[in-house]
């Protein structure tokens, strides 16, 4: 046999899982991101008493594709004064960082590109944080005041909140004792409990920090449309803009995955060690089948033939997926797929729930101002995160000295919470006195 061909074959044989996972990520994530946007718009519409996208496809289901086509064929504008190289490079960096960092995320027990890397969670964190190089460079390259202000805000925000988020993650890592992603999930299996219950403060800090890191409301100052037009994206249009956008939503999936892995038990189903709840393993197939049944129920109520047909199609698709999920239970040779399929289901469900919280907050809350954002980060979250790391450490020390684990954790969490309350009180008093001081009358305008 041709030696080159042979080498390629060997290469493929050893790396096929990683390669397919990578291809799947690169191919599927943009599509998923598009549909996350659609879901967000639909949810927002629902909360705002309107319908949202309805025109392209039944219930607007083809809207992401229409958007993608529109963005692709749009004129690609580069401002005259822009730095062309960097302007071109910046969105690519943003997108690449988000996609690359997904490589180390385990979507299920076996679906992971960088499987044997023993610094998985650091890899995800580090590489996804490269995305903001894209933001800062894009803001600079656009040569516009709005862009550069957005970029500066973004940098300051990311630096401060990554600190808080990183410290929150350390609390989780202390509990798991490993940096590898599958190791973290295994640790939660061993503890018989998700880390969100062991380190609630850390989970909360990470939630806030991750919202800020992904530039989502109420921390969306870098792209605050009512202040900075679109922040660092102001001068971008067409497909470059779409890359930024995809990067942002991919980043949401990344932080959701980190939170799920670290605090929500990764791909474990709820109560993974309680044996009389083993029937939960059938749940994925059941839930998907139920969605199909609901679609059939709704199909009769659609006003137009096309939509009825579409509902039937959705129902059939659901049944097909449900069948895929259910089949291994009946076919003995396929039994080995069960953990993978179910794991992916639970993992994606948790990530979706996490992203839903993001969206919910976005529809509800006004935006912070920049100084308030910085104060929240530096005066409240970072001290709290540091104290929390100590508290978790102390709890683990107590546990190793024979104190009941729950007692230790509840005690230390209470201490942290008391600290948090004091911190907020102190901060409130401080800002109040500061704002009254700044109100000193100055001369008349004009």
């Amino acid at each position: 046999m041709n030696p080159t061909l042979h080498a390629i074959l060997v290469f493929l044989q050893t790396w096929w899982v990683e390669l397919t996972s990578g291809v799947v990520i690169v191919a599927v994530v943009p599509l998923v991101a598009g549909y996350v946007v659609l879901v967000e718009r639909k949810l927002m519409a629902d909360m705002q008493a309107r319908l949202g996208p309805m025109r392209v496809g039944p219930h607007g289901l083809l809207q992401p594709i229409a958007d993608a086509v529109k963005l692709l064929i749009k004129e690609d504008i580069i401002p005259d004064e822009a730095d062309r190289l960097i302007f071109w490079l910046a969105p690519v960096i943003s997108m690449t960082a988000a996609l690359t960092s997904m490589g180390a995320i385990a979507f299920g027990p076996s679906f992971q590109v960088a499987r044997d890397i023993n610094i998985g969670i650091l890899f995800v964190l580090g590489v996804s944080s490269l995305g903001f190089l894209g933001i800062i460079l894009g803001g600079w390259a656009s040569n516009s005041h709005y862009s550069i202000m957005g970029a500066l805000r973004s940098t300051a925000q990311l630096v401060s909140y990554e600190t808080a988020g990183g410290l929150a993650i350390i609390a989780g890592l202390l509990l798991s004792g490993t940096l590898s992603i599958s190791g973290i999930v295994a640790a939660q299996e061993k503890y018989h409990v998700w880390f969100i219950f062991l380190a609630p403060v850390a989970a909360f800090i990470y939630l806030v920090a991750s919202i800020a890191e992904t530039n989502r409301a109420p921390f969306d100052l870098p792209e605050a449309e009512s202040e900075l037009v679109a922040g660092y994206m102001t001068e971008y249009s067409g497909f470059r803009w779409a890359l930024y956008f995809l990067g942002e939503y991919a980043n949401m999936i990344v932080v959701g995955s980190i939170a799920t892995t670290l605090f929500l038990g990764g791909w474990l189903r709820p109560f993974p060690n309680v044996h009389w709840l083993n029937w939960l393993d059938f749940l994925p197939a059941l839930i998907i089948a139920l969605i199909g049944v609901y679609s059939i129920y709704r199909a009769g109520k659609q006003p137009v033939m096309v939509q009825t047909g579409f509902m039937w199609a959705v129902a059939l698709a659901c049944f097909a997926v449900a069948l895929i999920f259910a089949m291994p239970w009946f076919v003995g040779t396929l039994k080995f797929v069960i953990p993978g399929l179910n794991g992916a289901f639970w993992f994606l469900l948790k990530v979706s729930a996490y992203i839903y919280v993001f969206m919910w907050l976005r529809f509800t809350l006004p935006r912070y101002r920049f100084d308030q954002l910085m104060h929240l980060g530096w005066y409240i979250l970072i001290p709290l995160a540091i104290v929390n790391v100590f508290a978790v450490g102390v709890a683990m020390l107590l546990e190793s000295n024979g104190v009941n684990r729950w007692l230790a954790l509840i005690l230390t969490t209470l201490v942290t919470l008391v600290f948090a309350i004091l911190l907020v009180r102190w901060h409130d008093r401080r800002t109040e006195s500061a704002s009254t001081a700044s109100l000193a009358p100055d001369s008349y305008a004009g």
Partner: protein
Amino acid sequence: MLDSILFYFFGGVAVIGAALMVTRRNAIHSAVFLITTLLATAGIFLQLGAEFLFIAQIILYVGGIMVLFIFVIMLVRLDVALHHIRFRMKSLVVTIVIAVLGAEAGAIIYYARKLPGQGLFIQNMAPASNLTPNSEKLAQSLFTNYLLPFEIASVLLLVAMVGAVVMAKNKKRTEDS
């Protein structure tokens, strides 16, 4: 096979990036190419089995130090300064001297490799498994043998932080706000 492909890829990117970094006029471009070089070096680290350093390089160097650089370049708006950069005779001489010295060092490495038993460089690498799990090994070493340097390094960072804040603080602005 895969090893050498990876080495030549990362090494090539690193060298090209470095060369571009030194020759670009625009400081932001320099920074971008330096980032490329640093990322390629991180790849080399990974290939050498130093996983933790790989990620430390990405997080600290690229995510931290280089962002600081870009930030400062953005703040001081260099395009005014960029106009009168020209290659001077003096620096040409210095470059030649450096090239000669480099050639000398290269020759030493090259011949040390050629002559068996004559130097360190022909020594074969220890098996990669000696360093796995990498972060644990590194931590063990860092927190036992090198605890004192570690603490000193943290003090150094603290001092640097305080120093940087003091240096960069705008006295005018603190007065009126």
